[in-house]
């Protein structure tokens, strides 16, 4: 490692693994306690896919109960007497299922997938750096997430079962065991999320420092690939939102264990304070879950359409605007909470305005494929599905943002439909696109495109069959988080639809097995990947697949933005960012000059 030392305050800072230096790290340092951002990204990938699988399994149990209320799950006896005697789910276990499904999906699947996996994989490679600014901190970030996950899983097995107050853990239900029937589980839930918060924070500090300080020469802000912009803004959201959650969780934990009464009214506590603190974090959190997805989709769409991204600058500012507005809308989760109605009106206005930058993104994506040369590779299919589905989720958000309409649909399945259209239709499709797109780069092998297309098609169809009818359930007044809708007479006619949803959900879950098979099979048996299978422009594609330890042999110089596709006058329809401009190329590239 280089030990050149120069004066303080000088532009930082990079040290290069000497070209060709043999990689003599032991197995443990290479794959387990690795500080290599690529390996850490892969570790996060495996971990969070496992959690995705767990979350999905819980969803299947939820759907079983709602589709065929009170009937025994085949083989469900193994869940045990306290949870599902004879395979029939108990109400208290159902509440745990819903809570843990939301928790695993949001905190342990989608968030690490987007931030942990793609943050680690892409940031150093996209900006032309050897690694993160703080590689050991990066390793610590991963190894903090693991115990957090284990604690969360363990909470299923303690007496009283896992947390059962919803993923939003509204106090006092979450604070007083006598109310929920959950004892240690709720405390473990808090502890796990506090620990996970540290992991996220370490990641955020690392990402921000790396992106600000470690860009290769010529990698100006306005030449950053959009995933990096999105991850940068996301890291800022994580950095500033997570500590608020941590603070709130600590207060809740004290209420549970030390006998304080922050949220308990008999002694002056304020239940609404929990909601304010939680949603002050919670709304930025949902943008943490969508912004990186938007970045990935922009990258894939431009590549698949062989066309520069439409309105790069507007795309960047839209990300910034969404993130900024995201801080002042948290009250839209509390319209019916007893918060001052006039405040509700204010929050409605700010919430509505978020549709504007979102509109920019959606229409610019359409502009990107307009007059393109669209190659329907598997990542592209998933990215297109993202656009189609995110619009549905976003538009349903406008219904809820309207305070009077929210009176009816708050806490109904309309919300559940919204959640899944933005989080599955949005984030998860983008994640699939991203995994199919970058898998070859990091594992050196292509994923099987035929299996990929089958998986995409089945997922797309069943997904819509599961979640679209939930809008109708909501409009018919079916509440969320209810164990047995048939308790209400007016919901009895909804049972066929619930059963339909459950059938589709089971098929959707089964379709994911294709992905698992494809993933695992391709790891060992997939076709060997060339360095640049998608003819893409950004820096990672100039490296072999997988890139060596230390990434670049020499620091790359960047000459243009990442979306120079189909530039007239060039033979190839792509133009790598680090290719020095030839005379002819320079003329046609016009405003893209040499680096400063």
């Amino acid at each position: 490692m280089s030990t050149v030392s120069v004066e303080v305050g000088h532009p930082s800072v990079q040290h290069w693994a000497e070209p060709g230096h043999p990689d003599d790290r032991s197995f443990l340092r290479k794959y387990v306690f690795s500080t290599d951002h690529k390996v850490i990204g892969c570790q996060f990938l495996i971990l969070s896919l496992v959690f995705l699988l767990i979350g999905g399994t819980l969803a299947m149990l939820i759907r079983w109960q709602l589709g065929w209320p009170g009937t025994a799950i085949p083989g469900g006896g193994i869940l045990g007497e306290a949870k599902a005697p004879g395979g029939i789910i108990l109400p208290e276990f159902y509440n745990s299922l819903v809570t843990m499904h939301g928790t695993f999906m949001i905190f342990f699947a989608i968030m690490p997938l987007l931030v942990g996996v793609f943050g680690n994989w892409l940031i150093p490679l996209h900006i032309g750096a050897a690694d993160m600014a703080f590689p050991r901190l990066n390793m610590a970030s991963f190894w903090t997430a693991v115990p957090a996950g284990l604690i969360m899983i363990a909470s299923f097995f303690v007496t009283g079962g896992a947390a059962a107050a919803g993923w939003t853990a509204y106090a006092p239900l979450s604070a007083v065991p006598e109310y929920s029937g959950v004892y240690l589980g709720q405390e473990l839930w808090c502890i796990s999320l506090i620990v996970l918060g540290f992991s996220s924070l370490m990641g955020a500090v690392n990402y921000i420092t790396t992106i600000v300080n470690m860009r290769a020469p010529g990698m100006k802000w306005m030449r950053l690939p959009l995933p990096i912009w999105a991850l940068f803004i996301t890291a800022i959201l994580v950095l500033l939102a997570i500590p608020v959650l941590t603070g709130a969780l600590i207060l809740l934990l004290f209420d549970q264990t030390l006998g304080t009464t922050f949220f308990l009214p008999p002694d002056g506590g304020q239940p609404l304070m929990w909601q304010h603190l939680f949603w002050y974090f919670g709304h930025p959190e949902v943008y943490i879950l969508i912004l990186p997805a938007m970045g990935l989709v922009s990258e894939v769409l431009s590549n698949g359409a062989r066309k520069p991204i439409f309105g790069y600058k507007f795309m960047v500012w839209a990300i910034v605007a969404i993130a900024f507005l995201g801080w002042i809308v948290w009250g839209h989760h509390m319209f019916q909470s007893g918060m001052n109605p006039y405040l509700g009106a204010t929050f409605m206005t700010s919430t509505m305005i978020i549709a504007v930058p979102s509109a920019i993104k959606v229409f610019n994506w359409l502009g990107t494929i307009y007059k393109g040369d669209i190659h329907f590779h598997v990542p592209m299919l998933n990215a297109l599905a993202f656009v189609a589905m995110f619009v549905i989720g976003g538009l349903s958000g406008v219904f809820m943002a309207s305070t009077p309409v929210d009176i009816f649909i708050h806490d109904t399945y309309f919300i559940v439909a919204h959640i899944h259209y933005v989080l599955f239709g949005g984030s998860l499709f983008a994640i699939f696109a991203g995994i199919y797109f970058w898998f070859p780069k990091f594992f050196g092998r292509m994923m099987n495109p035929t299996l990929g297309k089958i998986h995409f098609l089945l997922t797309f169809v069943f997904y819509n069959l599961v979640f679209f009818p939930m809008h109708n359930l909501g409009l018919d007044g079916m509440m969320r988080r209810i164990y047995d809708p048939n308790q209400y007479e007016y919901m009895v006619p909804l049972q066929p639809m619930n059963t339909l949803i459950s059938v589709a959900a089971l098929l959707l879950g089964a379709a994911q097995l294709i992905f698992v098979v494809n993933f695992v099979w391709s790891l060992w048996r997939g076709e060997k990947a060339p360095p640049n299978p998608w003819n893409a422009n950004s820096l990672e594609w100039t490296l072999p697949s997988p890139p060596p330890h230390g990434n670049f042999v020499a620091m790359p110089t960047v000459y243009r933005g990442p979306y120079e596709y189909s530039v007239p006058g060039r033979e190839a329809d792509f133009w790598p960012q680090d290719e020095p401009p030839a005379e002819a190329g320079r003329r046609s590239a016009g405003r893209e000059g040499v680096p400063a």
Partner: protein
Amino acid sequence: MNWNWLLPEPVSTFGSEIDSIYYLILVITAVIFVIVEVALVVFMVKYRHREGRRAEYSHGNTKLEVVWTVVPFILVMVIAWMSMRVWIEAKVADRGHVSEDALPLRVAAKQFEWNVTYPGLDGELDTADDFVKRNQLHLPVGRAVRIDLTSEDVIHSFFLPDFRVKQDAVPGMVIPVWFQPTAVGEYPLGCAELCGLGHYRMRGSVTVHEVEAFDAWMLQEGQDAAVETPAPADTAGVDLEAASTAPAPEGNHPPSHQPASEGKERA
């Protein structure tokens, strides 16, 4: 299976106004939805890869982008503006929207039931002829009701789908709720906020009577209650008042102990 996007028939005065906002948003978003999805599919088909064709090299079009920034902005502001009035009317119960002769009720939620305190014949709460009914809300048609909503343990949500009423019941707070039924009938009352293992069965019923029938019912119930329990007023009234305003001055109040294992029964 009901695939239409209609809301159930509204039976309160502001119900149809709320619904009109809903239908307005439904139309706007449906149009946007169709535009976006059709454009997406058309572009996908029209610009699919064919040998020898190249994508157009373009970095965007600022004019267009300004258009699709401004138009959605105007649309959402229209929606917000129209929502505002209805919202204030529906939710601000203590700022002059409720007529003087509104029927005063108190609803106290607790795991897993709704306790409704009726004013009795004198039409005033906290008097001797108050009586409490569990899970039964009886109302006269055509007269506003004003409910003081609170909770004794956790947060519940007072949900009357047909009246377009939903309001969380928060322990330690008394939240005013109002509406005015417009049709006689039986309607569901539900709990919409996860409140524990019995959340799914914390339901009640709303019965809207003709005015005379309601008065008769009130008379009957008031007499029955007076026979059974001499002074029911202070159970519901005074306790709640204390919870909402003053802190408990003396000693530690453990939350009421709710047997956690109750309700092992299944549907």
